């Protein structure tokens, strides 16, 4: 079945450390790819998106993501996390001609 997988349910990282969140998809063709962040009690905010072109995408809040076709992955990274980055992160894809599908999310906890 076609799907979006975020293998890590919960990640804890120290403030100032690097962060990487994994996302894999299983669709035949390369879909459009998104990362959203959801802070507690808030809606989803778009961090970045990939449609085509350069496979390294820069987003807001210092985040970046790299599309790797060979691995069907679109991992999100941040070199140095801040306490305000504690939130839930969702990878989402739009296969050509289909609707937006979300992964189950990864909760990030930042410790001092």
């Amino acid at each position: 079945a076609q799907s979006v997988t975020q293998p890590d349910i919960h990640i804890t990282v120290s403030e100032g450390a690097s962060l990487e969140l994994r996302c894999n998809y299983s669709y035949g063709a390369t879909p459009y790819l998104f990362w959203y962040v959801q802070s507690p009690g808030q809606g989803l905010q778009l961090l970045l998106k990939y449609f085509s072109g350069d496979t390294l995408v820069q987003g807001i809040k210092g985040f970046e993501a790299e599309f790797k076709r060979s691995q069907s992955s679109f991992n999100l990274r941040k070199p140095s996390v801040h306490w305000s980055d504690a939130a839930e992160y969702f990878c989402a894809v739009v296969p050509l001609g289909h609707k937006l599908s979300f992964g189950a999310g990864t909760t990030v906890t930042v410790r001092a």
Partner: protein
Amino acid sequence: EAGVAQSPRYKIIEKRQSVAFWCNPISGHATLYWYQQILGQGPKLLIQFQNNGVVDDSQLPKDRFSAERLKGVDSTLKIQPAKLEDSAVYLCASSPRTSGGEETQYFGPGTRLLVL
């Protein structure tokens, strides 16, 4: 630019009662979406409107859920009667283009529903 507005932000009802949620999309956005987000899961599409017409309502439980977008702007999602399993966050999103293209969806803050 104002974002997607939703109200109420929180709602607590008893099972078998009815409830309605309201959404005002970003000005000029033709496409409007309603999602249901159950705790611990990603959002799931309930219904998609293009202007005031329904594009996709395949995941909408039509025996109890209904939605409308009469003038192609604001939208209302209704649940009648509510069940315990309807407890979730209901998210509204809008995008400037039709589905399948390079549109980006912008989300509102959501309405948290608790059914007791």
